[in-house]
């Protein structure tokens, strides 16, 4: 029988490994559905790494299995193997190739990170539309004291900010998110609505200002591929565009106590008209239901008193609210 030449083997294996890797990379069903602009970016990046990873996995594991079969000790053979203790070109090759791959991935991840808005957290927008984050690079002496404070604050906000094409623009909707053991409280500063679930319109540029009342929590929406810790004493933010109407879980991802696993709620992505209906309905509720308390300065109330009217709507039980007054 005629021996198949080695280059042909290599070529065949190379083609098969490439095809399998590409198929695994772009047909895997490992990630949840994509519901934000960022999720598409993250998934593409992840899948590129899956392609490269699958190829490397197949080649290395294939070589291990081949060695295990081909170079097993045959019965009665007590001699040693070949006395090869190195090969400089080969070693240079397998140092250089991974180096090139990881440098490529590094550059690619910077690109993805920028597209996600990773370089623009704390990109505060002034009323006149001037960016304070930019102003802070100018000598602080030109600014008033209040502006200096604001500028310095703008530098120390962490998270995901505006995507590249929206840098310097205000978000369409801002929501304040507070994490506490074991619930999320969402406050809409423009309308005064407080809720235990996050409602946002689809295709709107939403900015979450995240804070924590007691311990560290982490705001995560798997379908958005976005996560940001809520840190006591620090300001963090997440800015995203939800691209698909629906209901998605909001999960706490940082150990926050015994009931950490139960700290789950939902984000509901509405169509714009649905969202306006919700907004009007909740605003009306707030006006009729708590007419008297509107006149009270919230700062005079304890957190528990302040939140009590919203407790039911927020799905927060009173014993959890009691934590706030501790």
């Amino acid at each position, binding site marked *: 029988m005629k021996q198949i030449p080695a280059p042909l083997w290599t070529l065949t294996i190379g083609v098969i490994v490439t095809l399998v890797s590409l198929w695994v990379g772009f047909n895997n069903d490992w990630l949840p559905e994509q519901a934000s602009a960022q999720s598409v970016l993250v998934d593409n990046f992840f899948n590129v790494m899956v392609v490269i990873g699958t190829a490397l996995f197949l080649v290395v594991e294939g070589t291990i299995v081949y060695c295990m079969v081909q*170079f097993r000790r045959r019965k009665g053979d007590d001699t040693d*193997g070949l006395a*090869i203790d190195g090969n400089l070109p080969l070693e240079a090759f397998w140092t250089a190739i991974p*180096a090139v791959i990881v440098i490529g991935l590094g550059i690619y*991840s910077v690109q993805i*990170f920028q597209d996600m808005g990773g370089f623009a957290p704390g990109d505060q927008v002034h009323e006149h539309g001037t960016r304070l984050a930019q102003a802070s690079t100018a000598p602080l002496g030109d600014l008033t004291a209040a502006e200096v404070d604001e500028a310095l604050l703008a530098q120390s906000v962490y998270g995901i900010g505006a995507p590249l094409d929206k840098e310097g623009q205000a978000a369409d909707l801002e929501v304040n998110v507070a994490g506490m053991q074991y619930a999320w409280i969402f406050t809409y500063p423009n309308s005064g609505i407080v809720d235990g679930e996050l409602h946002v319109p689809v295709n709107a540029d939403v900015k979450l200002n995240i804070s924590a009342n007691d311990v560290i929590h982490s705001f995560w929406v798997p379908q958005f591929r976005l996560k940001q810790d809520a840190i*006591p004493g620090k300001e963090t933010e997440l800015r995203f565009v939800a691209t698909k109407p629906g209901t998605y879980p909001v999960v706490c991802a940082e150990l926050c106590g015994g009931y950490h696993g139960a700290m789950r709620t939902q984000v509901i992505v509405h169509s714009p008209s649905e969202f306006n209906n919700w907004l009007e309905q909740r605003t009306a509720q707030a006006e009729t239901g708590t007419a008297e308390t509107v006149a009270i300065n919230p700062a005079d109330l304890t957190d528990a008193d302040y939140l009590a009217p919203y407790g039911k709507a927020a799905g927060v039980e009173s014993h959890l609210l009691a934590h706030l007054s501790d």
Partner: protein
Amino acid sequence: MAQANITGEMIGNSFPHPDKWKWYHYFTFNVDHKVIGIQYLVSAFFFYLVGGAMALVMRAELATPSSDLVDPNFYNALLTNHGTIMIFLWIVPGAIGGFGNYLVPLMIGARDMAFPKLNALAFWITVPAGLLIVGSFFFGGAQSGWTSYPPLSLITANTAQSMWILAIVCAGTSSILGALNFIITIWKMRVPSMGWNDMPLFCWAILATSLLALFSTPVLAAGLVLLLFDINFGTSFFRPENGGDVVMYQHLFWFYSHPAVYLMILPIFGIMSEVIPVHARKPIFGYKAIAYSSLTICIIGLFVWVHHMFTSGTPPWMRMFFTVSTLIVAVPTGVKIFSWVATLWGGKIRYTSAMLFAIGLLAMFVFGGLSGVTLGTAPVDIHVHDTYYVVAHFHYVLFGGSVFGIYAGLYHWFPKITGRMLNEPLGKVHFILTFIGTNLTFLPMHELGLKGMPRRVAMYDPQFQYINIICTIGAFVLGLSILPFLINAIWSWSNGPKASGNPWNAKTLEWTTDSPPIIENWDVLPVMTEGPYAYGEEPAEVSS
């Protein structure tokens, strides 16, 4: 008489001792490095069983989505102490303290470590660490994760948390003392015929590990002592309500605890480089590349810690800098993997239990390394951080890696340590069960994390139950897999067939003495006549 006077050149008794250690000597402040090595290995294995039992309770809890087996606070105590025990009382003392102490002097031709009393002290400091961890359960157990992030760690189970901190400080002190001892021993006490590049790769790995431990452990100790002060003495280093900074703690913690990952894997890499050539009957491929890549990993490993904090209070430049530095670690790690695969190529592989565990490690570490690259990039990590994807990844490198490596080492050196051979068929049953159990437990966890299940939860979304049941079954297979090993080790230690001085026909110096070695290792110190991996060659050609 000063212990530092015991040098490699010294022949004869340097301290009074009986001809042979009795069983009770193993429970005393003994300065013999081999006794200390066994003390470390046996006590570490005991804690492995304790930590493993905790994992089984957690997996049983996770068989159902609701919290119905144990109290959720106790669940948090289990997950905290499972991690703590496996890291600080099993892998680190087992791999570094156990194998390091037993093997380094034997491999370099020394009669003992440079500072035998310091060595014994280092072991005995780990005893209060273990007692404190066990004792903390009488106070509810520390419940804030092995990371113990404030403010949670400041307000939860204060007594248990303080005991936990003291335990880690003890374990860390032991690690620092051990590291000093290894560095001096390897540097100063090699037999004169052994140059740096004739040194077995296990010693290179222990040297790199020790340097890393020496640089990073004090930082953890500092962070934890500040935490202890915050809990007990009214300071506010990490209390945000008084201006403390919780993110500062995370930096202090991870500056040590990322290198801790390398503390747990570098010695295992060393074990791999010893086991594979012996049982493949080939010289190690790329000796210098493997030796220096340990040092490279140890240096780069000091500059990657922020990848544990990508979703924390971390500025953009830091997220990007640490993405790139993390990815670079893949290069020296890849060099090692490829070198071991190349060592198999053209060998005459003997499928001993030690070799099976070594090849099993190789297969799984490749996978854990690749998932690690995806985790190391900030864009993907933002999604999967603190999920089961992370749990899956680090169990592939720490269970599929470190634990498999310790088993490979135990099968390989058991004859040297005890003078008895282990039973091979039982060893193979052990390997097969462990390999299946590991993959069944940890492979499905990748999908759990990607799909949206966070880690450290006692209750979870019911849509994840199916995959969780698979993981739980796998965990119980793993639990079962311990039995053949325990039976094998206990029975063989007293009744196994007697081992010759060199049952694997290996070339490193520890095989030139009896099994088990006499108290000061050799009557006459050995001389290196050939390289440590001179397989497949006529010894005469090399020594000429």
